[in-house]
């Protein structure tokens, strides 16, 4: 069995289409990381942005209290009015905090500029700052934690895009697994051997799944490494997801930190990938050419997204939200799964588990169907 798996993997690796796709994927990966991190807004024009950001993060990390918010904001407006207009770096961290806690009508930037012109200083007492309770942040037994979040938002964004990359690559590779032998007219030879049905089918499923998972791990590994460089380590891992002000998930009902959210995202993506791989392998086994397998599989991958444009309510909508394309993005699964109007069950974790169970079931069911199909398969 191991030997057959080895040969099936080799067949995939030697495929021209796959090699081409792999090369392109590496470029796309580099592009995503470059735009998402190296070229992120936070870097600023002089590329000192991240350094400044971490200074502010260091000062602002800690329990999420009204007092800390006050401190952050007062520091922010203090520096804003001190710094020379032309030298003023864009403090994305505090800017997001200000956006969250200072009512729109306050117009603090105008007021600060006016004050500076008149040689005065606007102080925090002159501004109406909303309280945590007022905004409605979810409360748990322990207070929420505030800390680095802008880099994490960028990281989530990159993670979302990587899912599309990995899925496309896996769909391409898995669409080849069975159909390329069919299109070579190799089946009469392969399917008439002793192990050419049961064991070979299992070996192909393993090979396709294994390479997909390997690509998944590699790509996310590289992305994690790039993030560690960008964020100078993993600071902010324990920041509560509710205090990631860029994501505006203030009322998210579960106590999760940013690392846990990342872990959930990756786990959900991986399980989603297994389902995608399963579906694609089945399609590959039922089509005569890799190209049509690819088109059909891509179509099915995207279809649930298109259908949510038509159906926006009810059980069918809930069903559509189970599919990876509708929940792969961090913000999407966090919001969708925490409310019963968008998902089947009431609680976030219930919905998460339900989704994972359904996706694993789809993967297993598809693999089983391929096996059953080829075990008996005879051309008509």
């Amino acid at each position, binding site marked *: 069995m191991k*030997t057959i798996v080895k040969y099936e993997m080799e067949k995939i690796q030697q495929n021209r289409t796959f090699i081409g796709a792999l090369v392109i994927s590496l470029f796309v990966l580099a592009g995503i990381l470059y735009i998402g991190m190296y070229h992120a807004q936070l870097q600023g024009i002089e590329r000192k942005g991240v350094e400044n950001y971490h200074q502010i993060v260091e000062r602002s990390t800690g329990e999420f209290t009204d007092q800390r918010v006050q401190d952050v904001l007062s520091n922010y407006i203090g520096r804003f009015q001190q710094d020379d207009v032309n030298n003023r770096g864009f403090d994305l961290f505090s800017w997001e905090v200000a956006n969250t806690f200072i009512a729109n009508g306050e117009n603090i930037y105008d007021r600060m500029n006016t004050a500076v012109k008149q040689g005065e200083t606007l102080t925090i007492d002159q501004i109406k700052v909303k309280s945590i309770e007022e905004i409605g942040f979810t409360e748990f037994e322990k207070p929420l934690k505030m800390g680095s979040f802008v880099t994490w938002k960028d990281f989530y964004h990159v993670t979302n895009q990587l899912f599309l990359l990995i899925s496309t690559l896996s769909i391409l590779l898995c669409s080849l697994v069975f159909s390329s032998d069919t299109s070579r007219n190799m089946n009469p030879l392969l399917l008439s051997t*002793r192990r050419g049905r049961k064991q070979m089918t299992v070996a192909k499923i393993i090979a396709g799944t294994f390479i997909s998972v390997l690509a998944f791990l590699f790509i996310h590994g590289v992305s994690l490494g790039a993030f560690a460089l960008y964020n100078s380590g993993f600071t902010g891992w324990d920041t509560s997801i509710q205090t990631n002000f860029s994501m505006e998930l203030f009322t998210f009902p579960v106590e999760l930190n940013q690392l846990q959210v990342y872990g959930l995202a990756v786990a959900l993506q991986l399980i989603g990938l297994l389902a995608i791989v399963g579906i694609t392998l089945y399609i590959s086994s039922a089509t005569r050419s890799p190209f049509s397998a690819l088109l059909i599989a891509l179509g099915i991958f995207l279809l649930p997204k298109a259908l949510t444009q038509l159906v926006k309510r009810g059980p069918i909508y809930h069903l559509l939200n189970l599919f990876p394309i509708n929940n792969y993005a961090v913000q999407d699964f966090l919001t969708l799964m925490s409310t019963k109007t968008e998902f089947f069950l009431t609680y976030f974790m219930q919905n998460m588990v339900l989704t994972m169970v359904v996706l694993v079931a789809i993967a297993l069911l598809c693999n089983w169907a391929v096996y059953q199909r080829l075990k008996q398969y005879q051309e008509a």
Partner: protein
Amino acid sequence: MQLELKDLTKSYDDTIALNRVSFRLTPGIYGLLGSNGSGKTTLFRIISGVLKQTTGTVTYNGENTRANSDAFRSILGFLPQDFSYYPDFTGMKFMLYIAALKGIHKNVAKKRCVELLELVGLEDVRNKKIKTYSGGMKQRLGIAQAMINDPEVLILDEPTVGLDPKERVRFRNLISSFSENKIVLLSTHIVSDIEYIADEILVLNKGVLENRGPSFRLIDTISGCVWETEVENDRLAGMLQQHLISNQKHAGNKTVLRIISKEKPAPEAKHVQPTLEDLYLYYFREEAVR
């Protein structure tokens, strides 16, 4: 050891590719002779279990090969027609892959594959990629892979396509020495491939098994129907029109014609000893070159 086909019929939407084919094979070499489109490939694919018949059964030693497909596939060797190899595999790697699919243990497989590649004369190129092989080399690789599991039933679909005369001789010797106590069934539309090595010839014409038997017996059926006659060149066109010609040879301003016909084609025509080639023309006359 007995392979039996009963009433095999295969119909596609608009064609009947096989029509109630029945025969029983015991160890020996069998040549399935038929023109293009006569149903040879269809028959082989059904026997090897990759194509579904419309009606009829295939049994091996009394067991239905569909119901016991695992067992049947382990004693089957099959060379299909028209497939493309993995271009970046070497000949050896391809052999080892098929050996793995045939459940041959790794320790034995390597030796067996080297041996077979030697037998088909590919030992020098066994580590070269298949994309560098000629048509004949690919064909020999196909023959070798079919034999890896030392099959009791060996089915070869047009195994000699692309082989040069020397390779054909080698192929015939290989099959002869391999065939002891085995059922070897090979198809061809080239008479000389099977004339000498086949114990029996099965004639398949338009999906119907028209005749079977040792070649001399089949040839006997047209004894008295093959003639040779010399004609003047001005009468040649007319003769070619009227008769089934199996050969023509120019000799000065005359032409010697070999004619297959139940009646005497010309007053001066003489009987000659029929060959298997004449027989082929006799069965497949529609396509005979006139």
